[in-house]
Each structure stands twice: as structure tokens, then as C-alpha cells.
């Protein structure tokens, strides 16, 4: 197991390979569907002003060689803040239209989710020294244990699942399934399973 501390430098992520198990510590930011759409429209295609500009600066601070986590958590409000109760990954492929540009814009070191992503993200990983990290889908209580602190929440108006949650994690478990060398474990499994499928159904390949 490889211990990674966020921010993660480029040489470290470029050395990672598909199949490696990692354990992450440091601050990461959750972002899923609405957050990705917002980042593209406001920060990347638009010119942020006012509160948007302020949030942009905050996110830049966390995300340069930082990590985006595809997650819509269950969060409990406590006396003096918040606590993550359940926080597994959501399906990443929905962010495929956006992720490559988000990786490039912020200079991400990692994207965590489940199910893998497509060619655009894989190319951006290669170009910017980023990796895609797979967390176990549904293992929400288990993963929430590694979330030690909620540092901030932004755009809460998007709803609990869709807001940007800035969290401090310790020992967050994941597997590298897309590396910065252009390899994707997901592509390999899709190809192998398709071959079996065609053979089982007697379809020409």
C-alpha cells in the first residue's frame, strides 16, 4: 500500500500504476454532477465574479495537485459543525464530459470515484500527471470513518449531495484504476468481458 499525502506532487502520481492500492491523507473536495456543471460554466467557460470568484480562489487553493472526490454524502449537523455519516463514491462516468477540463484547469493530482471514466479523462490524466482512484462503491460507513473533519461546505444551495464539501481525510482507501501512463483497468475488463459475451451468444467478433 502506498501512502499519499495531499497535495501530491506530479512525480509521485506519474509513478503510480494501475492496480496499486493507495491510502490518502489530507484535504479533498467532494464534487459531483451539479458541482462539475457549475465549475465548467462559471470558472472555465465563464469569468467568475463576486462570491463565485471567492469560491474559485478557495477551490484553487485546495485543488492544485489536490483531489476531487465524486461523492454525495450523508452529513449530520452537529453543535459546532458537520460530521460525515456515510460517504461512498458515486458513479464517475457522468462527469466524463467535464473532468478533463477540470483536471487541466486546477491541475488535479487525483480524481476519486467508482466505475472508471472515459478516454477524455484518461488523456487529461496523462497530460497533467493525474490518476483516477477507485473507491469501493456502497462502502459508505466504512469510508466515512476515514473522514476526520469537515473543513467547510460551499454551494450548500445545490443540496446536500451536490454541494462542495471540503474534508480532511486520514487513511482513505482506494485503488489506482487509471494511471498517468494511459492505462485503464476498466478498458481491459470491458474488452475481456465483451469477448466472453460474444462467445457465449455465438456472435461473430
Amino acid at each position, binding site marked *: 500500500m502506498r501512502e499519499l499525502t495531499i497535495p501530491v506532487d506530479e512525480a509521485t502520481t506519474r509513478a503510480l500504476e494501475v492496480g496499486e*492500492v493507495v491510502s490518502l491523507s489530507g484535504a479533498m473536495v467532494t464534487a459531483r454532477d451539479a458541482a462539475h456543471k457549475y465549475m465548467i460554466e462559471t470558472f472555465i467557460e465563464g469569468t467568475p465574479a463576486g462570491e463565485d470568484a471567492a469560491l474559485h480562489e478557495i477551490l484553487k487553493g485546495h485543488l492544485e495537485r489536490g483531489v476531487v472526490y465524486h461523492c454525495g454524502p450523508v452529513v449530520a449537523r452537529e453543535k459546532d459543525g458537520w460530521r460525515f455519516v456515510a460517504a461512498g463514491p458515486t458513479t464517475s462516468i457522468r462527469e466524463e464530459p467535464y473532468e478533463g477540463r477540470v483536471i487541466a484547469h486546477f491541475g488535479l493530482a487525483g480524481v476519486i470515484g467508482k466505475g472508471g471514466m472515459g478516454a477524455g479523462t484518461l488523456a487529461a490524466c496523462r497530460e497533467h500527471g493525474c490518476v483516477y482512484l477507485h473507491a469501493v462503491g456502497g462502502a459508505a*460507513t*466504512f469510508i466515512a470513518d476515514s473522514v476526520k473533519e469537515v473543513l467547510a461546505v460551499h454551494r450548500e444551495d*445545490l443540496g446536500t449531495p451536490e454541494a462542495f464539501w471540503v474534508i480532511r481525510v486520514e487513511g482513505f482507501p482506494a485503488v489506482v484504476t487509471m494511471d498517468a501512463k494511459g492505462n485503464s*483497468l476498466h478498458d481491459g475488463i470491458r474488452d475481456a468481458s465483451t469477448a466472453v459475451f460474444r462467445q457465449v*451468444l455465438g456472435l461473430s467478433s
Partner: protein
Amino acid sequence: MDEMTGHLLELIRLASTDLPADIEDALKAARDKEDPGSRPAAVLDTILENVRMARTRSTPICQDTGLLNFFVKHPPGASHGEFVEAAGKAAAQATEKNYLRPNAVHPVTGKNTGDNTGEGLPIFYFEEGDPGAWEVSLLLKGGGSENVGAQFKLPDPSLQAGRDLDGVRRVMLQAVLQAQGLGCAPGVLGVGIGGDRAGSMALAKKQLLRPLPDRNPDPELASLEAGLLEEANRMGIGPMGLGGRTTVLGVKAGVGHRHPASYFVSLAYFCWAARRRRLVVNEEGVTLA
């Protein structure tokens, strides 16, 4: 119905936090089939550890607590409206207590109601049952698994799928292939054969209430289920789609009469966190199973 609200809150809590024994047993059996120290064994160990932790702490197994699907058998003459109100209150209370994540989003405004109620939510399927008895089954069905559900119309020449059970087999294997790990494999396949489009999908979803070890009383459907299970697992997609020997934990198929011109086949995919629980309220008291 105030009492019913309390029972339904407990039903929701149990469904969200305590995975049924048959599903957990199937996950353990899947883990035992993998080589020790392998990636799929590690994934399944994490899943099983998470199941234990969620049960002990009474916290959600998965943060996507899904949409609430209530299958209600009610006494003759009982009010649906009152039950719907009780269930809505229970859903709101369960959200407040963090057994549920707020999951009701308006498609136009994007606004989340914050309490898991809204237009068309929760989802209800009512059916008349015995006098004096309520039997309420609840599925918590996550978005990822719902997104890999599918509906096919036979024949499908690209898959050489005709209007028969072999055609059903072919399109279902295609759906499993397309789903890869995205529905949080290893999952349960609910298969609806026949009906109209909406009925076919409802039938598929209803199959997910069946316990994994049960056997379809129709021998042809039993054979379809067993064959699909074996062939789906041969594809090697594995837990979370990261490779392995178990992609599907069970297959459950049901039929409905169809229009002569239509032959629909629907897949309702249940993720490994197959959260289903049942509440019975009758003269003998209240039972949660």
C-alpha cells in the same frame, strides 16, 4: 396512522442500515470463491466490513439511500391517501435522522426538497390484501443501480434475440455487459417479461422482493434464472467491475401478459447493497423482517 408512521420509520432505518441476511450470505459466498489476497477478495472484504459497521452503528450502508419504493398490501377498503401521508412523514423523519440522504430533486429547478418527498415520491405500489393486515415491503434503490436498468423490445436482430426465453437471455446478458461495475456489482437482476412498458418495468422491480434462495415455481423461468446467473458470472466483470468471479448474486424473473404486437423485457438492477425489508402489522402485532 400515527402508529404506522412510527413503524415505517423503523422499516426505513432497518432497510438503510441492516442488509438482509440472504444478501450478506451471498456476498460471503462470493468472497470465498475468490483467491485470498486478490483484488475482488479485497473489495468484498471491504463491502462485508462496511455491512457490519453500518449494522452496528445504525448508519446507512450506502450514502445513496436511493428512492423509497413501497409495495403495500392493505386491508380491503383502507385509505391509500392516509398511508401515503404516513409514509411521507416517516421519510421526512428518517431524513432528519440521517437514515436517508435527501434525494428528491426537481428536474427543472434543480431544487432538492430536503425530505425525500415530492412529486411522485416516495413510490407506491398498492395491492389489496387480507382483512386486518398491512404488509409493507420497502426497497431502497440507489441511482447508480437504477441508471443501469434497461428495457428491450424483442426481436433484437443485432443480438439474434427472438421473441422467446432465449431472446430474453440474450438481451439480459447484453445489459449486464453494458452495466459493467457501474450499478455496484455484484447485483441482483430483476427481470420483467411481457406487459406494457411501464408494467414490464414494475414487474422487474417487484422481482427484487424475492429472497435469493427461493426457486421460481415455473420450471422454464427457473432454468432461465439459473442459466443467466451462470453466464453473467462467466463474463468476469466482478465486484465493482474490477474483475472477479461474481458479477451477479441472483436472477429473479416474472411474467405478465403482453399485447400481441409487443414483447418487452425489462431489467431492474439491484446493487450489492440490496436494501429490502418488510413490515407486517396484523392482529398478532408488528413484525419487521
